[in-house]
């Protein structure tokens, strides 16, 4: 019996109920076996291999589909009992040693990745591990890196991507949350471009800068996900709650849809788009204005103020609407009135606080330009053009538009 801890004590009735529930589940055959691994150090490799060789003889691997069927029917359907291999915390040694072993012996590994650990600079990873009770007892690596990298995670996401008979992706290791406006591709492109140190326009907005190396590198990276078979443009972001997507680039306002689909956000980790130590992201904002030609300007401004002003300690209409979506408000009064950012939204707040969020440049004909950008990015990602070639054409088209105004 473990020492008494008042905060974790449960009522005797609850204890009995939990045990009974356990027994009913077992009696119904509604159970499955699990092995939980955390760090998998190199010196244990021989032991892990012997274990997996044994497991291969006695158990079946468990896919997400198998697990869903198990949940739906309450019973296991393969002749050998199912065995789930869990690997927690995103250790580098689980990528280097455990994942290849699981693959060798025909097991699907279930990796639970805390993105804060992956994002942590190498020099701080041991401190991060200590602060979060992650035990690292062996020192396999002289360079000090103990967490997986995003590139390693990207490689693993390729392994979990599955396609149907028509070669369409059924389960995507990675996806872009696209929208009808094309922003789902354009905005990540901006984030990558900013992270590369690039900008879409010259300061005076007379010139587009999308034919430079920064833009090419950003688009190469996105197109590489398609070339490597990890993503294609047919993947729908709303497959994420259904388990059809492992990782997704998305805007924060997807929070409400994901929470609704999953029944909560406990299993979703949020991180900035990985782009090295100098990463940047896009700050996307809505503007409200009144037509200078309107004959109802006064009423229109009154309505705009009504919608945007916090009153009596309560957030404004727009603030509440944005908060409901999971998006952020730009009003400090709204910020004070609304609950603090949750774990889903906090990384976006952090990006703002760290000056890593860069606003989308406000240019004339912005909507038309964004449409052109979406089309160009889609063409490259569909393999219809090389990144440099597609961007050169795009650059030229945008400069034609800019020339009318700047």
């Amino acid at each position: 019996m473990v020492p008494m801890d008042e905060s974790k004590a449960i009522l005797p009735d609850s204890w009995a109920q939990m045990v009974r529930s356990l027994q009913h589940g077992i009696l119904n055959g509604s159970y499955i076996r699990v092995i939980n691994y955390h760090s998998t150090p190199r010196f244990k490799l021989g032991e892990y291999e012997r274990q997996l060789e044994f497991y291969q003889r006695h158990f079946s691997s468990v896919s997400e589909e198998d697990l869903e069927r198990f949940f739906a029917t309450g019973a296991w359907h393969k002749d050998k009992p199912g065995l789930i291999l869990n690997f927690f915390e995103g250790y580098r040694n689980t990528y280097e040693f455990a994942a290849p072993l699981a693959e060798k012996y025909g097991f699907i590994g279930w990796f639970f990745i805390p993105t804060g650990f992956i994002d942590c600079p190498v020099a701080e990873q041991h401190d991060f591990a200590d602060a979060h009770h992650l035990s690292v007892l062996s020192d396999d690596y002289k360079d000090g890196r103990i967490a997986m990298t995003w590139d390693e995670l990207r490689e693993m996401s390729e392994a979990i991507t599955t396609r149907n008979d028509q070669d369409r992706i059924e389960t995507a290791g990675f996806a872009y949350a696209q929208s009808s406006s094309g922003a789902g591709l354009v905005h990540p492109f901006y984030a990558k471009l900013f992270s590369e140190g690039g900008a879409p326009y010259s300061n005076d907005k007379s010139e587009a800068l999308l034919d430079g190396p920064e833009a090419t590198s950003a688009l190469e990276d996105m197109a590489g996900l398609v070339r490597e078979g990890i993503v294609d443009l047919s993947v729908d972001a709303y497959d994420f709650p259904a388990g059809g997507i492992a990782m997704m680039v998305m805007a924060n306002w997807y929070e409400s849809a994901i929470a609704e689909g999953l029944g909560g956000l406990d299993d979703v980790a949020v991180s900035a788009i990985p782009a090295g130590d100098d990463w940047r992201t896009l700050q996307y904002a809505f503007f409200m204005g009144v037509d200078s030609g309107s004959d109802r300007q006064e009423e229109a401004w009154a309505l705009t103020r009504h919608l945007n002003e916090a009153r009596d300690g309560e957030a404004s209409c727009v603030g509440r609407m944005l908060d409901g979506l999971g998006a952020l408000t730009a009003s400090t009064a709204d910020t004070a009135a609304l609950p603090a950012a949750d774990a889903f939204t906090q990384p976006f707040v952090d990006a703002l606080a760290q000056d890593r969020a860069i606003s989308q440049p406000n240019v004339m004909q912005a909507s038309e330009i964004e449409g052109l950008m979406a089309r160009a990015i889609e063409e490259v990602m569909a393999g219809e053009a090389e990144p440099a070639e597609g961007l050169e054409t795009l650059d030229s088209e945008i400069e034609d538009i800019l020339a009318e105004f700047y």
Partner: protein
Amino acid sequence: MAHENVFQTLGSSARSLFSAEQLRAFEEAFDKQAAYCRSKNYSEEGIPMFLVLEDVSGTPGTTPAIDTENTAPRDSLFDLLLVTAVEVYKQQLESREETPQAEDIGLLLEVLAEHFFITAQPPKLVRQA
């Protein structure tokens, strides 16, 4: 008989098979197994566990309809052994003075998985029609 009573009887019956001395030996074995589980190095070892579906339908004790046509043959005797072992462990934990806690379920499952992760002889059962 309600399942609750069956479980209780199973556990008590299993315990009644032992003499007092044997029961003490059994309880010591359980304690040793629990101590072994607690002493495991979680950052190096794979920890066996059972994932058991909980009936949240609000009708505990009833058996949910299972699609037997597409399920694997079950080793019901093994399941019976597991259920009995759970009851014996439960009664042993409850015999202590301390109040059982939520994490004791985890320990119970861990001890159970350590002991009964695989059937000694894989059953050769015929798939039910």
